[in-house]
């Protein structure tokens, strides 16, 4: 999997947005689940994230993230009621456990665990989407004006991932043909065998880094003041997407402050859907889905595409 980078050109709307616009959108997708714990809101954000992955044609690339996220979410859901004794609706009494005391599974702790799992999944999806729609060079280009050294390090590291994965696979094959059996022996012995592979990779990487440094120097790196080749153009669609994303964030903060997006888990579960809470959710979702709606519009209406 690592032999291919996650980003693949899919001609998706989000991929063609200005990097600042798409980063704003992803930033909002990341911040919203941190601000709000209301299960319906979290479901909405999760829906928006999954929809964004789907319309960007990145389901296959994001699948490892999604699978990992679902397992983590389930783990949080299971572990939370085992460790948290709060909540008034007891579903099950268990045996006495050291440190925890008597096991007491409550409905509230299960629901809280589920909400936290969903929150985690939303965050993982935001990162999966980042991998699928942000070209690494666009990212480094955006930041290279004020942090070009860090941007360059990121770029070099990104390039190294597929090359190192290829080298690792090749080195492992070679060592196996030389009689190294990676599946046999104690844990310590196997660890030692894998450390040989790391040695091979480390030595080759060090040699490779000298060659790269030489090539960089030959092209004038570090010889004086640099300029920045970033020719990304901002279109109306970028401003519209930024506006939609920022509005979603502002509205979510407002709803949180005013209590429309609050949900009580302990000691008893609060009401899931109140009238004004749902209205706020609808408006925030509309803002959050706005870039995706624009993308759909651009795909189907050439006129809209030409205007924005």
């Amino acid at each position, binding site marked *: 999997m690592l032999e*291919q*980078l996650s*980003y693949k*050109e899919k001609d998706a709307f989000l991929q063609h947005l200005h990097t600042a616009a798409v980063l704003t959108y992803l930033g909002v997708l990341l911040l919203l689940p941190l601000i709000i714990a209301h299960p319906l809101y979290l479901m909405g954000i999760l829906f928006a994230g999954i929809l964004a992955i789907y319309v960007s044609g990145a389901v296959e690339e994001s699948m490892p993230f999604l699978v990992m996220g679902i397992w983590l979410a389930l783990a949080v859901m299971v572990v939370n009621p085992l460790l948290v004794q709060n909540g008034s609706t007891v579903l099950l009494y268990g045996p006495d456990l050291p440190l925890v005391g008597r096991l007491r599974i409550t409905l509230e702790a299960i629901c809280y665990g589920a909400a936290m799992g969903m929150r985690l999944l939303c965050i993982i999806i935001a990162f999966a989407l980042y991998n699928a729609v942000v*070209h*690494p*060079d666009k990212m*480094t*280009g955006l930041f*290279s004006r004020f942090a070009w050294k860090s941007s*360059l390090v990121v*770029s*070099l590291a*990104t*390039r190294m991932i*597929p*090359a190192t994965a290829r*080298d690792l696979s*090749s*080195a492992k*094959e*070679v060592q*196996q*043909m*030389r*009689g*190294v*059996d990676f599946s046999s022996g104690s844990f310590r012995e196997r660890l030692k065998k894998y450390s*040989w592979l790391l*040695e*091979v990779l480390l*030595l*080759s990487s060090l*040699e*490779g880094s000298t*060659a*790269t*440094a*030489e*090539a*960089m*120097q*030959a*092209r*004038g*790196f*570090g*010889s*004086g*003041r*640099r*300029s*920045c*080749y*970033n*020719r990304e153009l901002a279109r109306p669609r970028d401003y519209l997407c930024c506006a939609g994303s920022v509005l979603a964030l502002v509205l979510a903060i407002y709803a949180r402050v005013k209590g429309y997006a609050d949900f009580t888990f302990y000691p008893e579960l609060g009401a899931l859907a109140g009238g004004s809470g749902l209205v706020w959710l609808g408006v925030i979702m509309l803002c959050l889905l706005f870039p995706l709606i624009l993308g759909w519009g651009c795909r189907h209406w050439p006129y809209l595409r030409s205007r924005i």
Partner: protein
Amino acid sequence: MALLEIQDLIYHYPGGAKPALNNINLQIREGEFLLVAGGSGSGKSSLARLLAGLIPEFYGGRLQGKLLFQGNELRGEQRHTLNTHVGIVFQDPEKQLVMTSVEAEIAFGLENMGLPREEMFRRVSEVMTFLNLAHLKKEFTAQLSGGEKQKVALAAVIAMHPRVLVLDEPTSQLDPVAAGEFLDLAEYLNKEMGYTVVLIEQRLERCFHLADRLLVMEQGEIKCDGSPGETARWEVEHQLPFIPPVAKFFASLNSSLIPLTVRDGRRELQKYLSPAPFIENSRESQTIPENGRASLLEVKNVWYTYPGGREVIRGQSLSVKEGEFVVILGANAAGKSTLLKLLAGILKPDRGSVHICGQDTRQLSLNELGRYVGYLSQNPNDYLFQDSVEDELLFTLNNFHLPDNGISESVLKKLKLWELRQANPRDLSSGERQRVALGSVLVAGPRLLLLDEPTRGIDYRLKAELGFLLQKTAASGGTVVMVTHDVEFAAEYSRRVVMIFDGMVACDGPRKKLGESIFYAPQMARLFQGSGRDVLTVDEGLEQIGGVL
């Protein structure tokens, strides 16, 4: 006035007792195409680094003498200025790229020069259009083919508008098609765009005719500097191998004209040919007794598809007997390396079977197969991590629980590594590293030796050593199967060739089949095509001509 001039230059790498460049005096004229040949460690790459201003700035060390650009000392020049004088493309397409996308890679040097954005955009656009890279501009550099990577590296250098292009073995890691395309570009840049080109190369048959001048380097010194024809004569006199077959052939005949291409060679050959009786090729007439030789490798109707869905091997069958030396040829992505991995048991066939010494590879683990099969991958560095050369060999023996019994000493001596047995493998040259990797495989006494592109990036002399070694291995009962793009090597040393096209065997027969091939015919076969003579190598050509003179 020369564009570039080196005067009385001596250079030592840090800690180096011997000079890497010794007493160099050289003038390079504007618009010249200079070809530099020589063995590994002869100082060719050091010369390239010197011209590109990387010696001593990047490497340090001691330097005496002068390097002048249009009469002005180049040393101490600002890197920005230097980039407009000399640009360099390196050997390894992977390691010289920095950015993740093609467009950003081309712009990288321009950013370092501090050019305004409009100027950078103009140059990047022009270069991408000129080199036909526009369709790749958003592609990840890591996922380009070797040829595309080298083209991007060249584009990145051209964008900086240097007057001299130094190309340090740019085709050594490429397949023949990509290498040919790259050299065509170098020729165009020289002939049509007026660039001064300094090309350092090991595989001279493709670029010999491009050169105005040829330098031969040995032990850090320029041993010969002249036209390709003059240099070819000098090399034959001094028994140096750094000339392509056709030039070597005519220089050996002491011809008044040394043709640089097959076309010119055919004209010249007419002087030497007469309707004399055909002499049977002495090498083809040496038949190997078939009786008693057991089949060591049996491939039956093998199919293989990669997990991504790409079907690479399609119904291949192959039988290899003990003592055979088989070369597998084919274009890029034809399935050669995949087939070799199937033979080694690294990949298991989806359908069909591979039997080695009568055992199905699907039933054996890799380390069990390692007792029968030695596998040398494309990159010798994958093998090297021990502190000494000797330890690398002992590592393999220990893994297979084999006693040493003097086998490591014998292998080290056979591979001319005995003197280097205590050296760290990573301190050795690329040719020596490859021999260490080969030694670490041979020490287990495999009955089948599989090699993936072992001649890539090594010089003629090392190739000859490898060729003789593999012939000796086959003669002593070992079986050798080798994947290569190097048809000259196949013609010189193998006994049987298998050509693969699109995952299927297109041709399987004795080495003389190479002479019948259109694309894979070695230079000498193309030279003698239509003459009714069965010639694949210089020696065979001389034998034929010797017979009619």
